[in-house]
């Protein structure tokens, strides 16, 4: 994109959203994402994380306020052009049609007339599914399916990834590998990521987190500053302690439950 521009890549300005006849889900929300920034989005179930990501992806239109991508209103982009810059990864993956792994990953190239950067097989290799490239996704486990869609997202090659709980259903090994993969892409290509998360302990690894409560930002900044006992209590309505392990990493502890 234009090298002269140094402002935020993605920005929500006073965005509000409500479904007709229902209460506000997102209330006057403003935040911006800088080039190469990694943001963890945390909040209780129903706090509005998914709605915020869908607003940022242009899937929902704000009833008030604006979403801007590269300093231009998001809705002024042609669909295909937007898809090359911005990619959304939904929380629920339910595919009951027997597409092969290769077919689904190949769909990541749909926005392009001339295939760019990476081949389908390279993307499949990046998520470790080389030996299953010809398999029907309907015959894969939940975690393997998720990796198929991660490969599709990678090949789509957008600079901004909006990921709604991409780690759900993944074994710890693939959680770590996926996060490392994203980190690598951030370093190589300067991609920006907003990721809705469930696991607070993973959020401690991010440079920046946003804690969401009732559709607005409760706290935003470094994990140490935001993920504190009192704020977590307010967001999740449960008392937890934030502790430091022997190697200096922060983690949350909820004592003995059972």
């Amino acid at each position: 994109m234009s090298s002269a521009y140094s402002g935020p890549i993605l920005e929500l300005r006073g965005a509000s959203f409500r479904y007709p006849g229902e209460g506000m889900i997102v209330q006057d929300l403003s935040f911006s994402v800088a080039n190469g920034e990694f943001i963890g989005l945390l909040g209780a179930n129903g706090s509005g994380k998914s709605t915020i990501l869908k607003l940022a992806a242009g899937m929902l239109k704000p009833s008030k306020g604006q979403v801007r991508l590269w300093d231009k209103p998001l809705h002024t982009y042609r669909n295909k052009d937007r898809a090359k810059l911005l990619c959304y990864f939904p929380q629920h993956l339910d595919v009951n049609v027997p597409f092969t792994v290769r077919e689904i990953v190949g769909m990541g190239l749909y926005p392009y007339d001339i295939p760019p950067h990476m081949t389908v097989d390279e993307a499949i290799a990046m998520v470790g599914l080389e030996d299953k490239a010809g398999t029907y996704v309907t015959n894969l486990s939940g975690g393997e399916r998720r990796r198929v869609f991660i490969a599709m997202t990678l090949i789509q090659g957008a600079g901004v990834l909006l990921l709604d709980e991409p780690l759900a259903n993944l074994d710890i090994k693939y959680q770590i590998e996926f996060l490392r993969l994203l980190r690598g892409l951030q370093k190589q290509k300067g991609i920006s990521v907003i990721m809705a998360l469930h696991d607070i302990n993973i959020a401690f690894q991010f440079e920046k987190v946003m804690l969401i409560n009732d559709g607005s930002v409760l706290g935003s900044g470094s994990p140490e500053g935001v993920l504190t006992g009192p704020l977590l209590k307010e967001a999740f309505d449960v008392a937890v302690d934030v502790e430091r392990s022997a190697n200096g990493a922060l983690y949350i502890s909820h004592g003995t439950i059972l």
Partner: protein
Amino acid sequence: MRTVRMGIFIAVAVLLFLLALFAGPRMINPFGMSTTEREILLSIRLPRVVVAMLIGMALGASGAVLQGVLRNPLADPYILGISSGASLAAALGLLTGFYAFGSVSIPLTAFIGAALVSLLVGAFGWKRGGLWPERLLLAGIGLNFLFSAVLMLLLSVSSDEGLRRAILWMFGDLSMADWTLIPSASLFMVIGLGVAFARSRALNALILGDEFAHSLGFAVQRERLMMFGAIALMTAASVALGGTIGFIGLLMPHIVRFLLGADSRVLIPASAVAGGAFLCLADLIGRSIMPPLELPSGTVTAIIGAPYFLYLLRRKDVLSI
């Protein structure tokens, strides 16, 4: 590999088309036809086989698109109520003595009925500026029941002679096929098929879900509206051409997915070819099995199709629900 299979697929379809043309209660030798046989071939067999091919293609393709749009592998174009609406309109036309357009009257009323019902289903399926699969499906099921009930009511209180024809027509009777309707019906089908094929990438994306489709750069609601229009056009034209012929729209996409995969770019044209070939075969069986009596093609497709569908249901990798 897939190209080879596709080639075999088309070859089988062409063979079945030719078989339906030359075989039957009276076999015709293509290399030594008498004048009578040539006459039978050109004015009876050929239009009939062409009609079978067209209807089968329209139903196969619209089934493939509809199953994707609704994200439901059990959808059949008739589930939208288009065919029962067409049947009702045709029966009403017969009962009220609407013969203004001669032999074209039944197909014409049927097509008008099908078009009106498509608009009605679309209207019920519309909310918040778009078509929603669940609403379309439920609206179709509701209207289907309503039209079938009214149709039964009409049939039970009337003793009209024309109704036997109407009932036969409803079960997919190709015996009346001639060249009259073929040009206009083909036009609608070509438009529908063209739109469906041109949007096959978008259909693939929609099958993954609205969110992926949006993320991949498709205008979800606009795509769905175009596909619904294509389905309505093809189904309406097919019902007008030969009545209600069951199982093709449901079954063909499943057979094709099993043989050639689920990619809509292959699925849509291949389901069309398979549907055309299957109906040619079913019609051939229907008119050959106990001549001079002819079985309506719709019953033949259901009698062959239903058991095969149940067999497919047992195979986990084909119907993964």
